């Protein structure tokens, strides 16, 4: 149980996929025009992430190492298709506003990254919690960006108009450049917090494991003490 909890916190804070690992930038920048879109995208990714992590973890001893990538893609794509049909059936508005980015969850690097670096080496339960943690971290990141962009760009929050802001729409924040600005500012804030904590003598735990788990192509694999190293260097 302790380990499961550690995985949750790891995903949400220590290795937050949006602000620390910088993974899944395509949906982060493209669909966060409003808070609802951010939550929707985050949660649908979470569902896929949890299910695919569990499935890949369950199949980890069966999948031959050489074809693991295609195998992961097949598993992820199946779950994405299920989620896509469910959304189309039950939340058509969200489905149409997220558009192409729902099928694109298949190639979201968070999902493949977790499959490769965690689920393929760990039992089902920790993998599930890893998926939940990472998914929630992603959802929180997207929702934050979505809230800020919606307030600045559209003068509303979760589709509720904020009256005093009615005349203060900065359209730029609803467009692509606004996504970059908001993401950059939030990452900067995150780094400032991290630095302050370090100065206080209470350093935040740094992101430990490498991202993709692919030590062969990692420039710092020489000095790396990762457990994955021997598994992947073949």
């Amino acid at each position, binding site marked *: 149980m302790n380990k499961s909890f550690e995985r949750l916190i790891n995903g949400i804070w220590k290795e937050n996929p949006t602000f620390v690992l910088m993974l899944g930038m395509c949906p982060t920048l493209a669909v966060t025009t409003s808070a609802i879109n951010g939550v929707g995208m985050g949660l649908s990714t979470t569902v896929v992430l949890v299910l695919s992590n569990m499935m890949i973890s369950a199949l980890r001893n069966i999948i031959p190492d050489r074809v693991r990538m295609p195998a992961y893609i097949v598993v992820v794509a199946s779950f994405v298709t299920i989620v896509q049909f469910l959304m189309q059936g039950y939340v058509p508005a969200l489905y149409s506003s997220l558009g192409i980015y729902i099928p694109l969850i298949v190639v979201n690097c968070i999902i493949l990254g977790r499959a490769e670096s965690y689920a393929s080496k760990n039992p089902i339960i920790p993998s599930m919690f890893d998926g939940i943690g990472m998914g929630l971290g992603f959802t929180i990141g997207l929702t934050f960006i979505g809230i800020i962009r919606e307030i600045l760009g559209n003068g509303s929050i979760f589709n509720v108009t904020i009256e005093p802001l009615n005349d*203060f729409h*900065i*359209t*730029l*924040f609803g*467009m692509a*450049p606004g996504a970059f*600005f908001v993401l950059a500012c939030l990452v900067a804030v995150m780094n400032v917090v991290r630095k302050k904590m370090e100065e206080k003598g209470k350093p935040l735990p740094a992101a430990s494991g490498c991202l993709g788990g692919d030590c062969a192509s990692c420039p710092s694999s020489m000095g790396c003490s990762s457990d994955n190293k021997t598994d992947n260097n073949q």
Partner: protein
Amino acid sequence: MSNLLKVASSPHVRAKDDTRRIMFYVLLALMPTTIFGIYNFGFRALLLIIECVATCVMSEYLFECAIGKKSTITDLSAAVTGLLLALNLPVTLPMWQAVLGSVFAIVVVKMLFGGLGQNFMNPALGGRVFLLISFATTMTNFTYDGVSAATPLATLKAGGSVNTLDMLIGRTGGTIGETSALFIIIGAIILILLGVIDLVIPGIYLLTFVVFIVLFSGHGFDTSYIVAHLCGGGLMLGAFFMATDYVTSPITPLGKVIYAICLGVLTGLFRIFGNSAEGVSYAIIFSNLLVPLIERVTVPRAFGITKEKKPKEVEG
């Protein structure tokens, strides 16, 4: 004997020019345009100009305080940015939007990249384009004599005819500083006489633009059409005061030519084939982004060094 030989490292001769002096010259050269703009558009234009200059200088000062750097507001570059930005705004723009544009120009475009000399695009134009994208309605709301009026370029685009004499003097709708080609040229002559800018970039820019207009506008060599396009919109202001910005234009001689041709072609492309009537701002900031590449391929050959055989992709 020992007194005769003094060893000092170069440079041995120093010119009096420094950033502050050059920026002061630019401010001076912008004065005719500014004063005419205030005369043309009234008291609110003056307020807007003061506000933009004050906001730019203040935000540069506060930003440098915040990050603990030495204040550089005395080099007047922030004031120039503020003035240029104000000259690029319509007189009816709400004050808070002008403040936002000034802060964006200084903080995001200039200071975040390291301050004067490090910015990759002209700060005033960055601020203007930010406002243009964010507040499309108020940024294109042009009035003249209290009546909202289409800019001459918009009229031209719609196929109407314009009075080129009015455009030359500046008695038309438009942003505060762009309407009068005459006063901009007076300012440009001051800058050229003071040696702050040379004619290479603006000259080739305007020439390329004219050639583009003659070839592609469908009007052929129609003098009044060409003059209207030259005097209309931000072309003159952009060519003399923004395209020549030291920081964001190439330093190599060949690079300047390429850069100016890019500007002319892009401006023509945006004006003739684009959706909106005006395209000078976008042409200049786009060419600003190309400057590092242009400089890279036009590095002059040092004396005595033969040209190396380079791999093919460097030339592309």
